[in-house]
């Protein structure tokens, strides 16, 4: 079972005595009180050190970075290095100290840092983050790069307005990045989660891109026809669909299991359930020569290629592209040009 955000009273898993280091070992569930606020005044650097040690001892992953980003955020910066030296070495107010303590305590429950500070960066944008809406991964930054490169190379562009459909927009990272880089683009974004739709709307407003994006609360698995009717032929279909194999979902770390929407992760026994649906419906939504860009599991590309060649005549498998770690990660397909009916 996954849970939404936890309140300040933390539930610490595997939390032994202060000196012991336990990582990923689950003992009986017991509530523990979060570390008490310091008696005297402390500096930001001291708070950093304290929480780094505490995270380490509590088995929280990336203890150094966690305290780094939380403390920096509390002081109004994205990173510690971006802050003035003065701010780091002067004493914190009681209020500030309480804020840092409150946020770090949330992290103790293995809440991802992005949810703790309620924001994160994606390419050039800073987006609001909120559980259980899926947190964008670094690989997806490259998915956007792929789409942008192709959009720029399209000979038809120039003055014509292009439309893009995103299936499963989550926080809006992909759609909003595309809009922000392409003034000519319009986007239709869908998500089955009401929270995701709300969050995407919020981010679109914050970034003043709301005029070029339409966001619909639709489940592409069950309401595909409705989805088709909402968008006239699009030239690009992009998606980072749930692609994990159901078996793998059980082995995910607490940050994901306890806080992120499982519907954004679980792609069925072979991880291809949503992907296949997207590819089946795509020919109805795409204009001729329209492109499909998918982020997938590294095991998927050859399976997808085979399946498309056997099942979706209107699509042509163009290529597989690797991510920054050289894993096959992105599938690019295209709707074939319709042949004129001579008879």
């Amino acid at each position, binding site marked *: 079972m996954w849970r939404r955000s936890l309140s300040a009273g933390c539930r610490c898993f595997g939390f032994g005595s202060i000196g012991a280091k336990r990582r990923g070992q689950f003992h009986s569930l017991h509530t523990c009180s979060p570390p008490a606020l310091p008696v005297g005044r402390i500096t930001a*650097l001291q708070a950093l050190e304290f929480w780094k040690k505490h995270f380490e001892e509590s088995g929280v992953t*990336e203890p150094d*970075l*966690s305290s780094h*980003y939380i403390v920096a955020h509390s002081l109004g910066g*994205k*990173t510690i*290095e971006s802050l003035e*030296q*003065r701010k*780091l*070495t002067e004493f914190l107010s009681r209020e500030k100290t309480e804020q840092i303590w409150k946020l770090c305590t949330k992290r103790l429950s293995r809440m*991802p*840092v*992005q949810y703790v500070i309620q924001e*994160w*960066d*994606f*390419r*050039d944008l800073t987006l609001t983050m909120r559980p259980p809406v*899926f*947190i964008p*991964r*670094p*690989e997806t*930054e*490259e998915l956007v*790069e792929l789409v942008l490169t192709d959009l720029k190379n399209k000979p038809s562009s120039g003055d014509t307005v292009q439309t893009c459909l995103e299936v499963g927009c989550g926080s809006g990272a992909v759609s909003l990045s595309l809009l922000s880089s392409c003034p000519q683009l319009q986007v239709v974004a869908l998500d089955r989660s009401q929270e995701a739709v709300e969050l995407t709307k919020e981010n679109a407003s914050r970034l003043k891109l709301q005029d070029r994006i339409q966001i619909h609360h639709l489940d592409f698995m069950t309401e595909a026809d409705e989805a088709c009717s909402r968008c006239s032929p699009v030239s690009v279909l992009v998606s*980072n669909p*749930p*692609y*994990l194999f159901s078996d*793998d979902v059980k082995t*995910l*770390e607490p*940050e*994901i299991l306890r806080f*992120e929407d499982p519907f*954004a*992760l679980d792609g069925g026994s072979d991880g291809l359930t949503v992907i296949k649906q997207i590819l089946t419906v795509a020919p109805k939504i795409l204009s001729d020569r329209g492109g499909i860009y998918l*982020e997938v*599991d*590294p095991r998927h590309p050859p399976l997808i290629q085979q399946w498309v060649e056997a099942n979706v005549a209107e699509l042509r498998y163009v290529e597989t592209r690797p*991510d*920054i*770690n050289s*894993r096959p*990660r992105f599938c690019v397909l295209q709707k074939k040009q319709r042949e004129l009916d001579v008879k």
Partner: protein
Amino acid sequence: MFCRRALVGFPNAKLFFCDRFKHRFLRSLKFPKHTIQFHNGCYTRTTRTLHTSAPLLGAKLLSVDELFARKSLQEHLKKIQSEYNQCLQAVNHGGAEEQCREEEMRTRRSKLSQMVPLIQNIMELDTKYKEMAENEALLKDPALKELAELEKEECLQHIQDLREKILDQLVPEEEADLSDLVLEVTAGVGGQEAMLFTAEVFDMYQGFAQHHGWTFEILENAPSEIGGLRHASVSISGSESYKRMKFEAGVHRVQRVPKTEKQGRMHTSTMTVAVLPQPTEISLTINPKDLKIETKRASGAGGQHVNTTDSAVRIVHLPTGVVAECQKERSQLKNKENAMKALRAKLYAIKLEEVTSKRYNQRKIQIGTRGRSEKIRTYNFTQDRITDHRIGMTVHDIKSFMIGQDLLEEMNSSLQEFSNQEALMEVLGENEREGL
């Protein structure tokens, strides 16, 4: 501009004068002047009222006239002219030759077109000399004397202008002078004090960049516990940024009583500045296959399987083993872009090194890795002076200097002029160092 400084509010005064005109010229300047003797007592020069005391320049900076008086320069100009004529003849008569010489013709033609501006100036200069000579005759005629005097003055002005232009054109252009740069500062000997000084120098360059309207983007910085800087790297871009900043590379030394010193003793600490030109796409192309990019998400399946805030990127250029990394941003893509920028700068520096190491062999002002460990400047706070050891120049008022505006600008310009002169001397084939 050779021997000409573009300082704010400074009229077109020259650094050098023919003795005959010195008196007249000094009278025409409106601000108070005082002249200073140089170590070799060769010539005098006016100073500006911007500073309380005049800077001293130990190195010998030759005047335009002195340079034109040199036989090597005259011979060089003649050589250029004959080269041009030969080239011109070859191009004009080569039309009838076979097709396979087309490539050669193309090179000849482009070389010709590059030489044209210089040749034009040389020819114009010759014309002006002739005019001067003709004018001399008219000076004897009492009726035309005044007119002739005016003509003479105008002529001399033209001659001076042309000479400066020619000298400018003779100094070889550096490919890197057009690029942007990556600046790296690192604390050296002296512990916390060295790190504090590094932070101050860093601020000075930030001011300098602002003064010139350059962008100043911090790529990486590692502060110390008490407000100092262990090391930092910055991407600076703007007009002539590398051309100016290249003279800042080397070891800077500070002499003062540190803030951390309890017994009031004076300490000497150091910091190092490295300047790496940023190549354009054309000047340096990297094959993506030569790169190994490392991130923390390298193991396992990545993607939706993992959530991490570790977006550090490390790039290794396999053929050379050069490494660049960045973890400053929260976005992995941005870190990758920054790391690539830093990598390109490093690779370019290596490439340039091969080209320039021979050229800079004999020079006093060393650019590149040769200059990296040279003590170029001392900042003595107790005596309130800054001395650049390469040209023996001393200025006062450290506080103003460290703001990174006029005083640093002046020192930088002097270095530029001296470097131009060294380059020119090499071109003229005079490799021995003249005086000090």
